[in-house]
């Protein structure tokens, strides 16, 4: 028999508890490394410490949006034959996108603050900044579309298509600094190119990316479960409403 207060366990299993504690410890160590142990930069001074949150945040956002796209493809391929699998991929797409949006917002905010002390301005409409804010707004639109009232299958299908269209902007954001002239500097780390960051700073950046990845994974798993719970509640609520309405209509005769 269900126990009224045991709903708390719905979002906390042993695995996610361990992951949550790991995320907390990892971000704590990230703060120590990023704010205390890593050295100031020869040009930017203390402001370089923004690097350790700004850059990993956009990497996580890219990863979240990539996961949304992969899940959306799997949803579109499997939802007709296996509706249960389809719903699983739809939830995964939604939770990854929401976490991606949170990290894109962090990227934009930290970038603006960092820009003020280095560039001398919070904002410029250059290609990198413009495409990043467009990415943020597009995925906000995706999340809004997921909330539009419609049949669940239709809504999920629309969202999956929009996720795939929205992802086009991700490589544009990443390569905008190479394709166009921008105020924003080139990528901090690129595959096949020697990093332009010295030892301690380089390792702090990589560690920060790892810490933020653990946190994002924990958030995606929890958000997934919450979406599942929201679906259960909606189904239960609708059934109760229909039942009470039918009882009322038939009961009066």
């Amino acid at each position, binding site marked *: 028999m269900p126990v009224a207060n045991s709903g*708390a366990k719905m979002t906390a299993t042993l*695995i996610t508890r361990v992951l949550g504690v790991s995320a907390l410890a990892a971000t704590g160590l990230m703060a120590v490394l990023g704010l205390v142990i890593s050295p100031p930069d020869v040009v930017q001074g203390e402001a370089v410490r923004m690097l350790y949150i700004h850059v990993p945040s956009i990497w996580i956002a890219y990863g979240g949006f990539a996961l949304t796209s992969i899940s959306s493809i799997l949803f579109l391929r499997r939802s007709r034959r296996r509706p249960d699998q389809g719903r699983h991929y739809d939830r995964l797409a939604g939770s990854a996108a929401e976490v991606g949006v949170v990290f894109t917002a962090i990227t934009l*905010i930290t970038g603006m603050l*960092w820009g003020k*002390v280095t560039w001398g301005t919070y904002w410029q409409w250059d290609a990198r900044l413009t495409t990043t804010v467009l990415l943020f707004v597009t995925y906000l639109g995706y999340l809004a579309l997921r909330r539009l009232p419609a049949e669940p299958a239709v809504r999920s299908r629309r969202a999956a298509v929009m996720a795939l269209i929205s992802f086009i902007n991700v490589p544009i954001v990443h390569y905008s600094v190479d394709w166009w002239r921008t105020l924003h500097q080139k990528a901090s780390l690129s595959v096949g190119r020697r990093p332009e960051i010295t030892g301690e700073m380089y390792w702090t950046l990589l560690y920060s990316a790892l810490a933020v990845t653990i*946190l994002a994974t924990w958030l995606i798993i929890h958000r997934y*479960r919450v979406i*599942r719970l929201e679906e*259960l509640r909606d189904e239960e609520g609708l059934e109760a409403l229909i039942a009470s309405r039918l009882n009322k209509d038939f009961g009066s005769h």
Partner: protein
Amino acid sequence: MSEVATVVAGWGITFVILATYSIWVVFRGKGIGRELGIGETEQSDLEKDVGTITDS
């Protein structure tokens, strides 16, 4: 704004956003779970769902 103030603001805002979002997600889950009166039995079903994420 000085370099140090910028760093404090940037890291501070980041931690506030992440903490707020994390707390919101956890408490929303707990709230809806409580509303539905879901217990251990239903939990194992959900774990199966999440298991597919970590397995995939």
